[in-house]
């Protein structure tokens, strides 16, 4: 009511507030479809193209007048700009005629325009129009993302064409659109927190994707193009740090293994550092154990918000142990079942050590239990043995073979002794026989420690691969265990999901729950419509003007007939096609499954038992329906009716509405 009052600035006493309340019912209108709006403008401009430029000499006198006036005032800068505008317009028409064999195709031609092209302002103008015509902050945010992506494509195209001078414009507009996306996001969150959250996650995903694109573009581009790319990359990274973006924050402790100005490697994870945005609390050197607060982008990209020395991280505690070297990478060795971080310049390696050798290790124990080697000394070189012993985490269990610490070990009934109740994720000690070609057959597998869960993290990401044992979600491998992992929703590759995962002592993730957040790339939008069935067949259902496809996967609850009142849930794909996922008869909540409705309207048709009043079919039953006046077609009547569970209206009383 306030809105109407404000709009009209009307004297309150003059208008019945009840009337205002009623008029307010009309205030929300059906929203305009932005696609329709954009098409409408396109059509209008095409029509203008067809009539205006060709007519400029003859049929538009005011146009001619302006031309003459213009000749007299050649020094007027405003007028010069107008000449330029007219020339551009003429050029556009000619260009379109040449390229497409007809005028009126400006919009199409402009679609491929790049910054600096004559048609480019038209392209961005169309975008702006679409934005203006789009209602809903979430939808606007998505459009801004779409346009930001276009700017990136343009940036790449400009670089490919060697047009470096225009790259800064593309970068600036890229920055503009992602900033606006965040602004719209803030509004969207207020409008609808749930959608806002999904949107935030989409934006995080998009930003991380942009950052990846820009990083590789930066690497492959010549020097003159780089400042613009760097600016865009910085904008993407900084926006990703925005609190409003749907990043999940994680905290972890790890050893700094490498440092560059842009990114640090901390215990195997790459963490992006942004000058001015990442708070680095102490003087940190490679080898230090640090605590990191980082934002997880939807693609698993980590951006550090804060890095500090982990207090008492190493606390001087040092252990010494012996073991066989099971694997060696540049950063991590596996020795006697333990992972030991090896840092060039800080770990002293004594002797020429190979996999299989037995070594003595002096290692610092981190607060997270992580071992950083101070010294590794060769004790004895590997000898060819019949039997080896190693420790590892059980990655997979099948009837014939187990995967333990990345190795496949054959398990043979009657020959392999399994000690303890072992499940995936547990740490075990294995005695195995080495066969031909290094094939291992377990003699004994002994439980050392059950999965030591060190924490649980939550993150969002896109599903990249699905196998029976593990899923890849935004670059992270997450073990999926039947009976232990709850999968919510029909998830397929490409979907965005939320993962609750347990972090094992070795950083391995085991999913506790994977929940579908958004189907792939939001190409499909969930819809829910309640209404009366206008037509139904085995393959389709029409309700309130929308036709849904029915597939064998569609869940149908109840018997659906024409005229039934149903709730349909489904998805709208990129082409606007609707597919029903669930169709359910709506129960009308009242004592006898009927609810009373009253309305007024014009009698449009009176045929036997079915009348049409105000566009609605109303059943008129002798003895049930009380008809108070002599009623004719065209009369305005008041109707009291009952709405049955089947959506049919049965009139109880019809009277003239005087």
């Amino acid at each position, binding site marked *: 009511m306030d809105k*109407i009052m404000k*709009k*009209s600035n*009307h004297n309150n006493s*003059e208008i*019945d507030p009840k*009337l*205002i309340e*009623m*008029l307010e*019912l*009309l*205030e*929300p*209108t*059906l929203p*305009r*479809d932005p696609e*329709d*709006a954009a098409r*409408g*403008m396109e059509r*209008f*401009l095409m*029509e*203008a*193209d067809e*009539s*205006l430029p060709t007519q400029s000499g003859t*049929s*538009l*006198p*005011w*146009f001619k007048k*302006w031309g003459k006036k213009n000749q007299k005032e050649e020094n007027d800068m405003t007028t010069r700009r*107008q000449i330029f*505008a007219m020339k551009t*317009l003429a050029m556009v028409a000619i260009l379109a005629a040449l390229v497409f064999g007809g005028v009126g195709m*400006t919009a199409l031609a402009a679609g491929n325009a790049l910054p600096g092209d004559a048609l480019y*302002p*038209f392209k961005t*103008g169309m975008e702006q*129009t679409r934005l*203006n*015509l789009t209602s809903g902050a979430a939808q606007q945010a998505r459009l801004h993302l779409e346009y930001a992506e276009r700017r990136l494509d343009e940036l790449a195209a400009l670089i490919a064409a060697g047009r470096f001078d225009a790259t800064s414009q593309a970068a600036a507009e890229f920055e503009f659109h992602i900033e606006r996306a965040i602004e719209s996001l803030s509004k969207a969150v207020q409008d609808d927190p749930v959608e806002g959250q999904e949107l935030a996650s989409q934006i995080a995903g998009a930003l991380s994707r942009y950052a990846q694109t820009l990083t590789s573009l930066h690497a492959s581009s010549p020097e003159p193009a780089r400042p613009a790319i760097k600016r865009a990359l910085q904008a993407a990274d900084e926006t990703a740090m925005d609190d409003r973006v749907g990043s999940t924050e994680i905290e972890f402790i790890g050893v700094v293994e490498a440092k560059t100005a842009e990114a640090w490697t901390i215990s195997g994870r790459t963490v992006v550092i942004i000058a001015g945005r990442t708070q680095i609390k102490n003087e940190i050197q490679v080898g230090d154990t640090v605590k990191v607060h980082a934002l997880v982008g939807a693609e698993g990209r980590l951006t550090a918000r804060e890095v500090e020395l982990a207090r008492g991280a190493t606390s001087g505690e040092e252990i010494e142990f012996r073991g066989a070297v099971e694997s060696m990478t540049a950063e991590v060795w596996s020795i006697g079942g333990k992972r030991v971080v090896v840092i060039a310049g800080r770990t002293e390696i004594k002797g020429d050590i190979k996999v299989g050798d037995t070594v003595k290790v002096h290692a610092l124990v981190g607060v997270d239990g992580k071992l950083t080697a101070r010294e590794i000394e060769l004790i004895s070189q590997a000898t060819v043995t019949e039997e080896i012993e190693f420790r590892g985490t059980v990655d997979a269990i099948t009837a014939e073979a187990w995967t333990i610490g990345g190795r496949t070990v054959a398990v043979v009934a009657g020959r392999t002794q399994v000690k303890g109740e072992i499940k995936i994720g547990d740490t075990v000690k294995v005695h195995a026989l080495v066969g031909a070609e290094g094939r291992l057959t377990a003699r004994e597998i002994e439980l050392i420690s059950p999965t030591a869960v060190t924490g649980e993290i939550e993150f969002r990401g896109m599903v990249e691969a699905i196998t029976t044992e593990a899923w890849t979600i935004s670059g992270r491998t997450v073990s999926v265990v039947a009976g232990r992992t709850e999968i919510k929703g029909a998830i397929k590759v490409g979907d965005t999901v939320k993962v609750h995962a347990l972090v094992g002592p070795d950083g391995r993730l085991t999913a506790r729950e994977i929940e579908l957040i958004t189907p792939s790339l939001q190409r499909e939008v969930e819809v*829910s419509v*309640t*209404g009366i069935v206008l037509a139904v067949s085995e393959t389709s259902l029409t309700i309130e003007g929308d036709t849904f496809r029915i597939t064998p996967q569609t869940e149908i609850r109840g018997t659906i007939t024409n005229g039934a009142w149903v*709730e349909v849930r489904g998805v709208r794909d990129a082409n606007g096609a609707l597919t029903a996922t669930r169709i359910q008869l709506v129960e009308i*909540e009242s004592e006898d499954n009927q609810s009373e*409705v*009253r*309305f*007024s*309207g*014009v009698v449009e048709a009176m045929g036997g038992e079915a009348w049409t009043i*105000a566009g609605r079919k109303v059943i008129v039953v002798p003895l049930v329906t009380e008809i108070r006046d002599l009623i004719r077609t065209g009369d*305005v009547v*008041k109707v009291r009716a009952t*709405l049955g569970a089947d959506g049919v209206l049965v009139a109880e009383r019809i009277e003239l509405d005087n």
Partner: protein
Amino acid sequence: MERMSTLALNEKRVIDKQTLAEIYQQYSPGLFRYSVRLLGDRRLAEDCVAETFSRYLKTLKSGGEPPQNVQAYLYRVARNWITDQFRRQPPPPLELKEEVEADHLANPARLVAKQMERERVHRALLQLTEEQREVIVLRFLEGWSHEQIAASLEKNVDATRAAQARGLKSLRRILIEPEDG
């Protein structure tokens, strides 16, 4: 709202494509809202907007002076189109969809009741004279001033004030008095 007409038409006297695009951007959302409110149908409303702008182009093309007050002109054309539409066929029932989308968890019976109440107000509005209806819609739903309305209706301000008073009185009689009595 007045900025465009003054700037584009009175001072510059130039209508290039950019100006046309701006005119469309500025007025088409309001025109759509206005038409869909009266027509109750999105497709018809889009048709109305398209026809209105097409007529505007034809006026420019015909060689006459471009309309001085674009807003008043466009709404006048749209209004005529809607009146013709009503003559051809009576107003269809309002779409139910928006309400349902807005709150699909609510009891459908309540939604139906609200929708019907809305329809009742809509129909009451249609029972007013064309002039009264225009004034009520533009004033209370579009937030126009009496001066703007007068320009669009090609009447004077006193006439639109009178139409407003008469329109509100009729609405009260149609909508409220039967309930009270």
